[in-house]
Each structure stands twice: as C-alpha cells, then as structure tokens.
C-alpha cells in the first residue's frame, strides 16, 4: 500500500534529530511536526520571521500579528525569537537551518527540483522555496512518486522550470525512500507492501536497486 499523508510525515520525521532547527513547507511537510519522536526536541522556523513556532492559538490567544509562513495564526514556544524577513533568510541562505522539508512536482537524478510553476497555468510565485532549497544542506522532498495518471515524478531531467539546481539528496514518496547521488536515484527503502518492480516501473530516472530493499516500518 502506498503511504498515506500521515505515513509520509512519519517517515520524514525519522530524519529529525534532537536539537534540529527545521523549516517545514506547506502541506504534508507541516504534518511532520505531529510526529517528532518522544524525548526529542526540534525548533520550527517559519520564514516570515519566527524561530520556535508553536501550535495554533486558542480563541483566547488568537492574534492577527502572530502568523506563520502559510499565513495561519500560530503561537510561539518558550524561547522563541521573532525577527525581520532579512534576518530570517540570512538564517536560511546562510545554511543555519538543519533540515528543510518541502513538496515538489518533480525531482531528477541531478538533484534538481521543480515545485513552483507549471507553464500555461497561473503562476502564483515561488515564495521562499528558492531560498530554502538554495540555502539548506539537508533537504527532504516529499511527494507522490507518480502523478494521478501514472507519470513518474522522479525524472532523468526535470521538465518543469526549476526551483533549484543540484540541491536535492533525499526524497520520500508514497512508494519509497530514495537518495540522489552521482547522477542517479538510489533506492533505500520501500513502502510496506510495495514491490521493487512497481517502484522501478514508476521511476523514470536511472534507479540503482540494491539486492535487499528494506520495508519501511511504522
């Protein structure tokens, strides 16, 4: 069975380490915050200028001046800091964020990522995504392995305009966990009950398959 949204978030959460500063993109990446392992602490960075993002506010805490990068009302944890957008992207661009998780339309064997623009459709903008992928050493992309029509999103070469070039090393899809190195995809884990054959069939870019591909455990 391909992974659910929650399972994707759970698998990504295993990339967390105690003391990590983490930036989570909108959508599935946001769910990762729900699966921080017991006894581990991470601090969430929101690129509009908040380090130490907390849960949504109660009705009593609601404050228009306290939002996250998704423009949702949020709270701050104890020990949070709040700063300007220039300072926020100094952190991001300067490589101070330990882990960045974001969605994508496509990735390729060169570590390229396309996530912000589909020509012919309305272009809404890249927001902070280009800065995030350019600034982070440690990025996890999470997305479905193939489109609804079965077209692979793990390509020899991205077909859509890029968000960043040569910056992606880790991809968690609903079928597999794949790493990118030396111009190839490297199959590391498969979703429970998903066959290697299915993953191979749905991976358009060159995929290196080891003899044993462990199943993810949840």
């Amino acid at each position, binding site marked *: 069975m391909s992974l659910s949204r929650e399972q994707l978030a759970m698998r990504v959460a295993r990339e967390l380490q105690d003391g990590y500063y983490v930036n989570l993109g909108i959508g599935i990446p946001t769910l990762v915050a729900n699966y921080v392992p017991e006894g581990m602490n991470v601090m969430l960075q929101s690129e509009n200028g*908040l380090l130490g993002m907390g849960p949504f506010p*109660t009705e009593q805490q609601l404050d*228009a001046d*306290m939002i996250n990068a998704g*423009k949702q009302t949020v709270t701050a944890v104890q020990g949070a800091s709040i700063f300007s957008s220039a300072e926020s992207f100094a952190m991001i661009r300067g490589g101070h964020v330990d882990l960045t998780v974001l969605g994508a339309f496509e990735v390729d064997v060169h570590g390229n990522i396309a996530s912000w623009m589909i020509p012919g459709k309305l272009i809404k903008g890249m927001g902070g995504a*280009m800065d995030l992928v350019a600034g982070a050493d440690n990025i996890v992309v999470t997305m479905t392995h193939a489109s609804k029509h079965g077209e692979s999103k793990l390509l020899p070469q991205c077909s859509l305009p890029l968000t*960043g*070039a040569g910056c992606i090393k880790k991809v968690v899809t609903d079928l597999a966990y794949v790493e990118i190195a030396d111009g190839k995809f490297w199959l590391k884990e498969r979703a429970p009950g998903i066959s290697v054959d299915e993953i191979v069939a749905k991976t358009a870019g060159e995929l290196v398959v080891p003899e044993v591909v462990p199943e993810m455990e949840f």
Partner: protein
Amino acid sequence: MAGFDKVVGSYAEAMAGLEDGMTVIAGGFGLCGIPENLIAEIKRKGTRDLTIVSNNCGVDGFGLGILLEDRQIKKMVSSYVGENALFEQQLLAGELEVELTPQGTLAEKMRAGGAGIPAFYTATGYGTPVGEGKEVREFNGRPYILEESIRGDFAIVKAWKGDRYGNLVYRHTAQNFNPMAATAGKITVVEIEQLVEPGELEPSQIHTPGIYVDRVIVGSFEKRIEQRTVRSAN
C-alpha cells in the same frame, strides 16, 4: 526637538508627493503588518501606474488588493501573489505586470537598497527562471547569481510603537518586511498604533532607528486575519 518631529496630522499629508509612475515599497507579509491606511490613502488619491514592491498583493478587497480595483498598479514585484482573484484576472488580461522574486532575495534587495549596496550575489534562483539573463559567478566552486538592490520613491511601513523622531518597534511577526522597507524609501512613511514619548523606547531595543523615517502618523487598524486557525482550549 522641532527638526526631528516627524508626526503628521492627516493621511493626505502622510502621502503627499506621491505621483503617477512612482515606485512604492510596502512592508507586510500576507495581511500581517501591512500599512492598511496608507494603502487606503493611495486608493483615495487615485495615483496610477505604480510599481509596488511587496511580498504579496493583499487579497480581494483588503490591503494592496484594493489598488487593483481601479487599476492603479502597473507592476508588482513580489514573491507570492496567489491570494487574489482580481490580480489573476488583470495579469491574464495583460493589464498588470509581475516580477516574481524569491522571498529572501526580495528582503535582501530592500535591505541592500537602504544600505547603499547596489548588488550582491546569491545562490537563490541559480539554474531557474529567476536566474535567466543574470550574471553567474563562482565563489568557492559554487555558482551564484548577481541581484541588484531596490529603492523606492516611497516606502510605506506599519509599526506598533513609535516616537516623534521615527524610532520604531514592531509587534510579533508583524515585523516581517517592514524594517527593510523602512530603509529603502526616498520618503519613508510609517503608520503606528501607539505614539510614545522620545526616551520611552529602550535605545537598544528599537527595531528601526528614526534616521530612516520621514513621516509618522498614528492610525487605527482593522488587522484582518487571512487564515484563522485555532485549536480548542484544552
């Protein structure tokens, strides 16, 4: 300190001198920390052909979105403009130009503009449509693109507390782009929630020193929430 008293009495006075075709840099992220009354004054004035530099363009009916209603904006420089049906309509009709700029690059372009740095290199956007036509240069084996700074004829800023000298403090995440915008206007206009006496703000806790500010006006704010997300109290 008469020469440093920057408080003006009306929004008309606050935006005096704004003319058709000018560039306006606006603080705010989404609807958070936007100079909502200064924007309303631009609508009232009917100034046209404006280039607006702002991370977003408000929503239909609020924030910068209201300047679309009478087609006052010629060009937007933004990182994300997806919250606005009127924007989409004018963009598709070719009535509006948009220069999409990565959020961090946009923040740094404003800061650089205010700081006398005409251009800087960044890895952001290299190998993407943002990098097209821009100079590429390697430092320590990595390619970077050259980005030029931005200055505005006006900067419009929203702060929380301010004094007559223009010293400002922002509240929570309503800070966002406001401090950089404040440095980058030939004329910087700030609307504040609360006027305090000079000396009330702790000098080392001032976010924007008054030297960047030309006019201050005290306003009252709707502070509309874009995504109201709450949890139950227990």
